[in-house]
């Protein structure tokens, strides 16, 4: 258990170090995720505890966003002037991005792998 948690923490720490050393515009955790993919590729074995720990974390992602969401309380000024525009812009942009992404994915799939398209 501790081993799996340590692996996650060490990857994040290494990501943080790389972020600071190289000035990469990615946060430590995202670099850490890429490092963990690399580690899993390098040292191949069954990892049931790592799967359990990371599965537990991903199952509870929503609550981890709550403290940041409550930060809404501080944004009165910007929201008073541009709140409605922001709601509209973000809603349209989110829906449009999903539509474009899903359509390009399907189109590229149909174009590159016609057989696979049929079974999906």
């Amino acid at each position, binding site marked *: 258990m501790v081993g799996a948690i340590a692996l*996650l923490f060490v*990857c*994040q720490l290494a990501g943080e170090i790389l972020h600071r050393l190289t000035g990469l*515009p*990615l*946060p*430590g*955790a*995202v670099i*850490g*995720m*890429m490092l*963990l*993919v690399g580690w*899993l*590729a390098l040292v191949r074995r069954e*990892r049931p505890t*790592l799967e359990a720990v*990371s*599965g537990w*974390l*991903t199952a*509870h*992602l*929503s*609550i*981890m*966003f*709550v403290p*940041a*969401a*409550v*930060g*809404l*309380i501080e944004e009165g000024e*910007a929201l008073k002037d*541009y709140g409605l*525009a*922001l709601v509209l*812009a*973000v*809603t349209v*942009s*989110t*829906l*449009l*991005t*999903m*539509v474009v*992404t*899903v359509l*390009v*994915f*399907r189109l*590229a*799939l149909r174009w*590159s*792998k016609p057989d*696979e398209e049929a079974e*999906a």
Partner: protein
Amino acid sequence: MSGLLSTQIFWLAVTLVVFEAADTISRRSNRHPLAHPVLWATPVLIGLLLLTETRYDTYYSATYPLSFLLGPAVVGLAVPIWARRALIRRLALPILLALLAGAVTAIVSAVGIMWLFGAPADILASVAPRATTTPVAMDVATQLGGVPALAAVIVLFAGVIGAMTATPLFNLMKIRDYRARGFAVGVSSHGFGAARAFQVDQTAGAFASLGMALNAVATSTLLSLLALLF
């Protein structure tokens, strides 16, 4: 007694109880999109902060253990991605093309609409990374001269919208491929979309995690390049 309101355990306990209540309602409604727990827990907690005259700084540091978990959770997304490596390798081309199209659409549409409303540069910079995960958005917004806290709120709103609308939207579009559905919601609505995707289907969840991770890379790279140009 008043000192109790600034203790870590008070706000952690309150946040967990409020979230669990919201989550129970969400489960009872069969995860109806409008019953997303964050959507209901957030205003209740804001109300409690206002009622007790607690500063946001105090609340944020008290509940930091929750925010902290986001880091290891993001690192842990490597596990479902690695488990589906063969599938991902086979679909490399659709993944890359959809990623590029999605990243550009998210930036241009969000910034473009705010620009039409005459929003100042700091708001445009805060809305530009709206499709990335919260820590990335806050970093990128700061780099571009935006407001990190505003960026966080915008990102969360994009997450809630994506999590709420993805299932009805893709059903309406008659798209049944969980790889495409998951990837699109991850690109557009980051970890929030991924959390929702994992509830629907494990493959959708893995592709959403991949979309989120890749878009964190794509959006921050695109915006950093843009910042260098101007």
